[in-house]
């Protein structure tokens, strides 16, 4: 069997195992796996705009929060069923990306990064301000519903869709153009690539996943508040996951999300007071020691294809 066939077989086996997992799992196990899928979706989405296209979004959790609130409001105020509301959360995040991306994607380098950081702070302020709709600082409670297992499958589908999307983009001409923009935007423009439009498309694609995941997470938690759905630390966590796994690759974000999430559950839970300090140390270590990530290193050493 070829390496590719073996990989596909392993992937299919993993999918079957994960699909059967809720049958044997405890409630905690399902919730933990659900969060892992959420991180895969978030890290994979950040990878599309920042890993592939080279525009560092330092406030990507804004789309997660926007999706959470859009879905939460639709469930509470309009009585939508949660799967539809979560999809609408993805739509709301894409709309936000369109409105914000049109001006902000003209900014280069650190300016774009900080503009996105600011967007997140502003959304948090706006959500607190419009109390009638969002419940303001006291938050928004969703009606009680025991749906961990359906949300598990929905989140797994979202993570798989984001990863599949990344594969489709990386292996397409569209993806090649995005990578050209990342390497040299002026050259890309000179080659006739409509950079503004391609960046905007990449930005939209990278916003939908976090929006849907945000809606699902809101349904799962049953309660959302401005501080819990717009944390800067969440943006940084997805960035570090991608960096650790290997940015600009298909499986890097998945690998990074799995390793860091397991590490977080197993190790950090024991060091509650030093949590942030350790996280800071991990960030510094990843930036200084492995800027290309695990898959990036393997790609160079073993001449692996860029579609890994």
């Amino acid at each position: 069997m070829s390496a590719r066939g073996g990989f596909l077989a392993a992937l299919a086996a993993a999918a079957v195992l994960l699909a059967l997992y809720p049958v044997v799992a405890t409630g905690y196990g399902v919730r933990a796996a659900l969060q892992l899928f959420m991180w895969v979706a978030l890290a994979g989405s950040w990878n599309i705009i920042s890993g592939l296209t080279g525009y560092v979004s330092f406030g990507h959790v804004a789309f997660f929060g926007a999706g959470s609130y859009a879905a939460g409001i639709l469930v509470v105020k309009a009585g939508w069923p949660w799967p539809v509301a979560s999809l609408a959360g993805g739509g709301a995040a894409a709309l936000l990306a369109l409105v914000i991306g049109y001006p902000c994607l003209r900014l280069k380098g650190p300016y774009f990064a900080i503009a996105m950081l600011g967007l997140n702070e502003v959304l948090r302020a706006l959500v607190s301000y419009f109390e009638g709709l969002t419940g303001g600082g006291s938050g928004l409670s969703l009606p009680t519903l025991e749906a961990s297992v359906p949300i598990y499958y929905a989140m797994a589908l979202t993570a798989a869709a984001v990863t599949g999307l990344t594969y489709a983009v990386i292996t397409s001409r569209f993806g090649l153009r995005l990578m050209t923009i990342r390497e040299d935007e002026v050259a890309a423009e000179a080659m006739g690539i409509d950079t503004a439009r391609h960046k905007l498309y990449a930005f939209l694609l990278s916003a939908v996943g976090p929006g849907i995941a945000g809606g699902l997470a809101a349904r799962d938690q049953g309660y959302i508040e401005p501080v819990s759905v717009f944390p800067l630390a969440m943006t940084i966590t997805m960035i570090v996951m991608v960096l650790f796994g290997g940015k600009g690759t298909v499986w890097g974000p998945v690998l990074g999300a799995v390793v860091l999430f397991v590490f977080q559950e197993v190790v950090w839970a024991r060091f509650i007071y030093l949590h942030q300090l350790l996280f800071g140390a991990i960030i510094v270590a990843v930036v200084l020691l492995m800027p290309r990530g695990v898959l990036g290193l393997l790609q160079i050493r073993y001449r692996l294809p860029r579609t890994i």
Partner: protein
Amino acid sequence: MNVAITPEMVGQVVISGILSGALYAMVALGLALIFGVMRVINIAHGPFLMLGAYTTVILHQSLGLNPYLTLPASMLLLFALGVFLQRTLVFRVVDAPELSSLLLTFGVSIALVNLAQLGFTSDLRSVEYITGSWPLGPFALSKSRAIAFGVAAIVSGGAFLFLGRTRLGKAIRATSQNRDVALVCGINVPRIHLVTFGLAAALAAAGGTLLSVIVAIQPEMGQIWTFKSFLVIVLGGAGNYPGALLGGVLLGLVEQLASLFLTAQLSEAVAYVLLVLVLLVRPTGLLGGRQT
């Protein structure tokens, strides 16, 4: 808005805006120096300010020192911390893509906040040293804010004299204008980076000292200052040091006017819209960017 807005109220917020603007300008000058010289945005700039504020509060509460007299101590301490961080960590990412330096300084930033939480707890602390206000015609001049304005003006003025008149200051500006040429002229660029990072941290610390007399402090107070300082240098033009002063006063005015005409909660959103507009319409800032 149910309350009628009188000209006196507008005058009052203009005064408050200018007063807080000087503080913004001084703190942002530090961020502008690091950005200008190394092209690094230091996310830990706000936490530096927080540590400066704690230095003052601790010295005031344990030794009973006048909070304003702790200014040199807080600036020196943070200068040392800045030099240490540059020497151990930041120098490794000076030439790396912006993602590396943003993430590295973010890592430093949350580690500092966590250490402050462990050392000082998350309780609000304040220095009740000077309260009340001086009357100024129909307006009131908050004493602590007016003193902060004066001290910030003196410290910023000192920083400009240092940059403009001393050999070391000129070397810093030369490095900021063109690092390679500075290197060829015999300037020890790594040493300039050390001094710049220390100086920037000291300016943030001065802001923290002054702020601790005005508002209650806590370990997470710093984050928003990083963003505000960045806004100030964008308004003024990145790498343009006098521009930072103008940007600071402008941000102070915009925030105060927004909280008068809209609400305090929306003033951040207004500041953000201003940031995006300036970046789009005049990306080099109001006074123009670095002249290189």
